[in-house]
């Protein structure tokens, strides 16, 4: 009987929204309305005011909303009603958001003209045209669908980053981490690459995001990209060398000293979106052992897959062949990876399904870079989440709010440190723990993993 009942379904005395939240919501609605309208519109050559108002109202609106929501409460954990709230509890609303996001990604990847991407002759229309003024301003070129996407992506991280900062204002770990994430997105991922792009109009495109490297950037070693870097002068050379050094040298060293969190929850763009826009959905991750099994197969499968694809692509590049053993490299290696992993997995499923599967589906099940760093984190790193002796009361908050679906409690309640390849070091398990049991820290490798934990508290067991 007991198991069938949902004990917490009602909020009989709903909060009064208050003026901050009402104005905030109204502003967000204005911004979203402009975006929604742009899709169906035939806008061309539209004034920069539209975009300015759209972005400005979303940014101020979310910040005002968050201010009204959190600043009237004491600093501390803000998970009241998470599992009663419609949107964060896989309700109809959540499904609708999921469907809208997924549709957007499908159009973005495979039908860009339907959202207004122009051709050589005809300029942009509608949604993409909305972003033309900003694109012209930054790099002197009209927008592509990727530019529009980049703007919205950065907007999401910045505006919902502010919300996250207010929500976790009692924790300096989260304040630092989120601020760095927001800066990385705005400057490293968006502004600097776009401006560099504008300054080198005549060069072929190559990725200029200082923190975006192989194997997450799966096209890094593709012939067109290598060529573009090779022909890109000293900047091209720099990005080529930097990209390889990041993978081969920087990542192992930083992961050894800090754990993979230095990237996944401090720097990465995918992580950045998950930590900010994805925060209301973090608890939806699957905690079952079966999900962990699936995770290990999938993520390491993708890692092997990208190694194979890249090896084949490089073989083709250096031997000047378009085939390997009579199989076409583009059709059978590059294209399927780009479609299946690069677009469908990381975009459509990874972000589109936030409200249904949680915020880190891609990071947990798919990202080959996460898999690579995870191997270091598990076997050669100073990072661990220390379990505080016998203080755990098995309440389950840590496991519930782990976006990576790690059953943190399993370790904590047996007095064992948490050393898991998938942990992105977001620190939320530690924050939500009501008994101060968990601490993310870097320390000596010795005794980091205790395979045979004994809970502190009894004197007799030690006499054995």
């Amino acid at each position, binding site marked *: 009987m007991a*198991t069938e009942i949902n*004990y917490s379904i009602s909020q009989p*005395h709903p909060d009064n929204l208050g003026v901050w939240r009402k104005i905030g919501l109204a502003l967000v609605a204005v911004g979203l309305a402009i975006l929604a309208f742009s899709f169906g519109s035939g806008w061309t050559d539209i004034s920069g005011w539209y975009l300015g108002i759209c972005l400005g109202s979303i940014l101020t609106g979310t910040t005002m909303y968050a201010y009204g929501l959190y600043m009237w409460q004491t600093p501390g954990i803000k*998970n009241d009603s*998470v599992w009663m709230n419609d949107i964060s509890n896989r309700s109809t609303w959540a499904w609708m958001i999921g469907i809208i996001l997924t549709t957007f990604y499908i159009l973005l990847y495979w039908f860009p003209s339907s959202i207004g991407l122009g051709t050589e002759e005809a300029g942009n229309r509608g949604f993409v045209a909305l972003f033309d003024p900003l694109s012209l301003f930054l790099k002197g070129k009209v927008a592509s669908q990727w530019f529009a996407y980049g703007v919205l992506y950065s907007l999401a991280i910045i505006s919902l980053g502010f919300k996250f900062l207010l929500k976790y204002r009692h924790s300096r770990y989260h304040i630092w981490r989120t601020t760095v994430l927001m800066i990385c997105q705005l400057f490293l991922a968006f502004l600097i690459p776009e401006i560099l792009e504008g300054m080198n109009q005549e060069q072929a495109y190559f990725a200029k995001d200082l923190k975006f490297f192989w194997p997450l950037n799966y096209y890094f070693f593709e012939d067109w990209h290598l060529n573009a870097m090779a022909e890109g002068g000293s900047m091209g050379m720099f990005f080529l060398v930097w990209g390889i050094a990041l993978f081969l040298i920087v990542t192992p060293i930083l992961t050894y000293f800090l754990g993979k969190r230095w990237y996944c929850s401090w720097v990465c763009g995918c992580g950045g979106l998950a930590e900010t826009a994805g925060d209301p959905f973090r608890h939806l991750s699957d905690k079952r052992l079966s999900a962990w099994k699936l995770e290990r197969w999938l993520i390491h499968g993708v890692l092997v897959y990208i190694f194979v694809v890249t090896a084949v692509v490089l073989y083709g590049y250096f031997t000047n062949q378009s085939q390997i053993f009579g199989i076409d490299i583009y059709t059978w290696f590059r294209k399927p990876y780009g479609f299946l992993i690069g677009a469908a997995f990381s975009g459509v499923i990874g972000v589109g399904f936030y409200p249904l599967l949680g915020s880190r589906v891609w990071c947990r099940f798919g990202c080959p870079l996460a898999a690579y760093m995870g191997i270091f984190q598990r076997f050669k790193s100073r990072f661990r989440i220390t379990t*505080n002796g016998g203080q755990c009361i098995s309440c389950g908050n840590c496991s*519930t709010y782990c976006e990576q679906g790690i059953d943190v409690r399993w370790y904590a309640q047996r007095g064992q440190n948490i050393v898991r390849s998938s942990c992105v070091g977001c620190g939320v398990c530690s924050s939500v723990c009501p008994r101060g049991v968990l*601490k993310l820290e870097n320390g000596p490798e010795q005794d980091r993993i205790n395979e045979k934990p004994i809970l502190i*508290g009894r004197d007799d067991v030690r006499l054995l």
Partner: protein
Amino acid sequence: MHVVIIGNGIAGITCARTLRKHHSDCSITVISSESQHFYSRTALMYIYMGHMKYEHTKPYEDWFWEKNRIDLCFDHVVSIPFENKSLQLRSGLEISYDKLVIATGSVPNRFDWPGQEAEGVISLYGLQDLELLEKYSTDTKRAVIAGGGLIGIELAEMLRTRNIEVTYLVREPHFWANILPQEEGQMINKHIRLDHHIDLQLNAELKQIFSDSKGRVEAIETLSGEKIPCQLVGLTVGVRPNVDFLRNSEIEIDKGIMVNEFLETNIPDVYACGDCVQHIKPPVGRKAVEQVWYTGRMMGECLGETLSGKRTAYVPGVWFNSAKFFDIEYQTYGDVPAQCTSEQSDFYWQHPSKNAALHFVYGKESGVIKGINSFGIRLRHAVLEQWIKEHKTVEYVLIHFEDAWFEPEFHKNYIHEIISEFNHKTGSGLKANKKSWHRILSNIKKATYGH
């Protein structure tokens, strides 16, 4: 061998798990009537507040029990005919055992207040209480809670998340006064009142409960004669061992089931652990009845070892506990009495503006540390356990305090402020040592393995 355990709380379940770990071929049955599966009672509040659903409070997935061959029986034990080594269940079933473990937990106290049978009077112990609370919450504007302890304050926090006004009656001059020293108690008083807008009435006691024509609570009266209209009354005045169904049998019971240090009762092959026991000879410095999660777990562990053939005495180490009062986390290690004895001195530090405080109690002559209370600051259990066990002095503790600091990275550490206040108060000239991983790890090793 068939081991039957009554109660699937932390004590009973830890016993079952430990037994299975050491003994692969006995059969184990756990009988319990509150829920089919083990869930964490300490998380009840989070279910009501919407932080988690019931399913998240189950520490093990449902397949775990079958895989570990622990049979679960969702039923209620009505009596135990010890002479036949069997149990009578509510469903009419009779189960026999070779060894029996009683881990029936506790039940909330009620002190015969007039009107306490009214609709809308609740306690907070189990899932059924949560159901009632859910039901009454919908039409409650104001609730009155009586009882200034850990469950009372949790209930207050729960109700506030549903925007229910709360009047909190505490008999003592500050919150949880039989445990907390005055300074800490006042800090919590303030937090309850100012930050969480609760009508905290100190030195106030419940006298009676009034109900309307339908039998639903409509008001209460306090001892001082004040009448407070309310639709819900929470009685949180402690718990007592859940042993009444055994009162008229041959098992020896005082407040709880009487057990020796091996958790054996007066009847052969019958053991008890957890909230329901009373120690005939309490471990040194400890109470005869200790009803917390940790002791339940430790007794369960110990008994599991005994049942697997290695008779093990229950020897708890340095006392520790923790709680959270709204936003303020609390940890305690060793012995910090509400009032220092004549042989003890203390040093209290409180942050000038934040909800953070530390209370050190040590021997007046020796300076040896006895216990530490900590509020809003996380401390490292193993390090404190070792310091207390090894009779370190308060000076040693203070200068090495960074070893014990367990706050998240980037959080401010107040060690310099704390030490300079100590120096100021006592005229000493202590200086903080840097954190040493070497010392920390050796303390963890000693606390865990004893060497």
